[in-house]
């Protein structure tokens, strides 16, 4: 057996193993999903709605050049079903009219700043309070990146819990009730929660609320829906069950403020600030031997705008990959460290070998397939096996996620949508995954070179007009 063949077998075994891990993770989460799927969700959160003991929350909306969507994001936040909360938009030195837009729509009036500073952040230049909605604030600061903006928001916030939400996301009306439920039920033992994030592209949105769930037209957007299913359904639930969850989506998560302050807030030196924070929280929980935990709820609570062009998707993937690489690098001491139990022994290695490096292995795999089938540099048999295993790992696993999604949530109202999603999932390995893998490898290379900036995703502002996109 020569070196190429050895590598080929290595990759084949790797992909089979990774696929099996996905399945095992799902099986860990399966019983809970199955048990809970028939529960009456409205009845379940009714209690929290009337109970005065829900913890008040500060919702932080970091915004950088979000003039297209910021007003409708805020409007949707103002309509949330929750007894007590405040909204803090942090304008991170936008160069567009983000602030003007808010001031105009919500009649913001300047207030004096008396913020505590738990963390050092870029300089705050002004603070405003809405005259129409006294629980809406806008703070302006010098540009310092998303993590810095979030830290400034935490400094300014007054409540014991905060939710971080992207400027391009909208929350379901009951999102806070649902995400706070594990915290309230556990009397605070749960220190951070996140919920399922969905792609809003294609859906009908009226006044900051998703009124009709529909599939988008562009293949690139449909594929991302499949991808989200795969990540959320198969991955996160299983991790959460075992209390080894490492990611709470940047699009929406709820945190206990005192815990975040204790660990030092968001890290401004990485592009993956959301994951890095979760890892740090886990680390401090484990080091303190505390019995607190991070939980993930399966209900879809947040809708986000997915990139709709190749360029913006590429930028997003590169950023994600860099964030992941940086987080793992920062916390490399936790890798295979039994002190951190499941996190050190399973989650971290999982993110390193499966989430971070799978792209590298897959790209090598493409090379082997091409050189085997077209140029006979590699044994054709090996190349064919590689291709089949990739179909298993890429397409069939994603297709399974679509099926599981329908089995658990049946959110899409018609039979046609499920069929379309399934067919798309089957095609994943032949085009979408190839693109994504190349970008992820690129991200990995960039992370070695280090460059720091806000995400440069172009916003169409899907939520700014009330029409489907």
């Amino acid at each position, binding site marked *: 057996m020569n070196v190429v063949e050895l590598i080929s077998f290595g990759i084949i075994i790797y992909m089979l193993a990774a696929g099996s891990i996905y399945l095992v993770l799902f099986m860990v989460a399966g019983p809970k999903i199955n048990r809970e799927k028939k529960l*009456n969700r409205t009845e379940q959160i009714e209690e929290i709605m009337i*109970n*005065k003991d829900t913890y008040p929350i500060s919702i932080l909306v970091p915004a950088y050049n979000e003039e297209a969507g910021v007003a409708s994001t805020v409007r949707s936040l103002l309509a949330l079903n929750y007894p007590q909360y405040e909204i803090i938009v942090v304008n991170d030195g936008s160069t567009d009219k983000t602030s003007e837009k808010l001031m105009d729509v919500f009649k913001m009036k*300047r207030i004096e700043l008396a913020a505590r500073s738990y963390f050092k952040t870029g300089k705050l230049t002004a603070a405003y309070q809405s005259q129409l909605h006294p629980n809406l604030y806008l703070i302006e600061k010098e540009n310092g990146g998303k993590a810095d903006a979030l830290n400034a928001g935490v400094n300014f916030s*007054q409540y014991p819990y905060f939710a971080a939400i992207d400027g391009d996301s909208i929350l379901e009306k009951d999102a806070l009730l649902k995400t706070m439920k594990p915290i309230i*039920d556990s*009397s605070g033992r749960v220190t951070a929660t996140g919920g399922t994030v969905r792609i809003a592209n294609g859906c009908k949105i009226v006044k900051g609320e998703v009124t009709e769930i529909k599939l988008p037209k562009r293949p690139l957007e449909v594929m991302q829906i499949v991808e989200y299913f795969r990540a959320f359904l198969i991955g996160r639930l299983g991790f959460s069950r075992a209390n080894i969850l490492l990611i709470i989506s940047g699009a929406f998560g709820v945190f206990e403020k005192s815990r975040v302050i204790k660990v030092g807030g968001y890290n401004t030196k990485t592009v993956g600030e959301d994951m890095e924070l979760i890892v740090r929280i886990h680390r401090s929980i484990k080091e303190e031997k505390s019995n607190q935990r991070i939980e993930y709820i399966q209900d879809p609570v947040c809708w986000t705008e997915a990139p709709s062009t190749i360029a913006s998707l590429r930028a997003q993937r590169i950023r994600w990959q860099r964030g992941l690489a940086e987080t793992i690098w920062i916390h490399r001491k936790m890798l295979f460290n039994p002190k951190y139990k499941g996190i050190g022994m399973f989650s971290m290695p999982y993110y390193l070998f499966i989430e971070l490096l799978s792209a590298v292995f897959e790209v090598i795999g493409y090379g082997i397939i091409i050189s085997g089938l077209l140029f006979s540099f590699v044994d054709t048999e090996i190349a064919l096996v590689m291709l089949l295993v990739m179909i298993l790992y890429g397409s069939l696993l994603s297709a399974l996620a679509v*099926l599981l999604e329908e089995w658990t949530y049946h959110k899409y109202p018609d039979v046609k949508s*499920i069929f379309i999603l399934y067919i798309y999932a089957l095609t994943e390995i032949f085009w979408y995954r190839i693109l994504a893998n190349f970008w992820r490898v690129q991200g990995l290379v960039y992370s070695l070179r280090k460059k720091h900036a806000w995400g440069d995703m172009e916003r169409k502002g899907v939520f700014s007009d009330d029409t489907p996109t």
Partner: protein
Amino acid sequence: MRMVQTFLWIVMGLLAVQLILLAILIFGKQKALKRQRKIAWVKSQVMPIYRKFIETPEQKWLEPQLPSNKSIRQAALEEMLIGFQETYKDQEERGRITELAERHLAPRYKSILKNGGWAERINSLYFIEDFRMASLKEDVFAHFKGLQKQDDEYWQCLRAAAILQDPKVVDVLFEQKTLSIGFSKELLMRMDEELHQRIMARMFMKDDAPENLLYAFIMLNGERKSERFFPFVEKMMTDERKEVRIKAMKSLTHYGKISEPQKLSAFFISIFWEERMYAAKLAGACKLSDFKEQLIHLFTDPVWWVRFSAADNLQEFEDGNALLHEIASTSEDAYARDVARHMLTKKGGGNR
């Protein structure tokens, strides 16, 4: 090529399994959609008749024909009655909703509690609670007794039993030491004054109440401004346990009154910042102008929360703004100036 063949078989095999699964799901989806349509249809047929019964019960009416399929009948009635509950708030109308639920749903829920699946049982418990189905009181508690694990079902059983005014829940509250404050309060909220009286009597008689229950009891009465239990709450302000004192003060801010204000003096100089903060809040909530001086003194407190509460509550007084202006321009303490200035520019928006 044997290896290729093996993998080809695996891929084809899995694809086939998935396609079968897809077919099953699509079939299931269609069935579910059909069921939804059927439920909507049943509702549209029977709703006007039941609506009439609720609005004008004295008029003669004929019970409509309901579908024989138990699950569809149940779902349609549940949806309809929940909808009615949102419309009809009057005591008598509510009573008739309960009457309908008792007549059509009670036997079903009884059997679900015995033989249904986990989620089904919990859903039934939700509705037993919503419709206040007193005939199931014993069944609910008997079911609770049989539960081993403290999960959603356990909590919901207790909630339902509490709303049905089952006195046995009082024993659970005293004996089950692990119930959280929030949950104890949830149960208390559902109980009537008679049961509350029973709880208070037991607290006086024997010192065996779990702390969480005591906190919940103190807090809830404040939130409800319950006159009957005001002396009890006020008495707790001088309890030897710090946390009980704080909860009592918090509760009194809701009452907005205190019968012996002089008792507050000591709290302004307490070594615990929480007590200083609540002293400020209570002075504001009860508009105790004798304590203005102490409030102003707290502007220089080392703890942010205390300074803030002091400034916030000074505004409760007529000359509050004038005093804030004065502090903002003349105080020697930078913290005090800061917080006064901030307070002057804010309007509403809670404690900021």
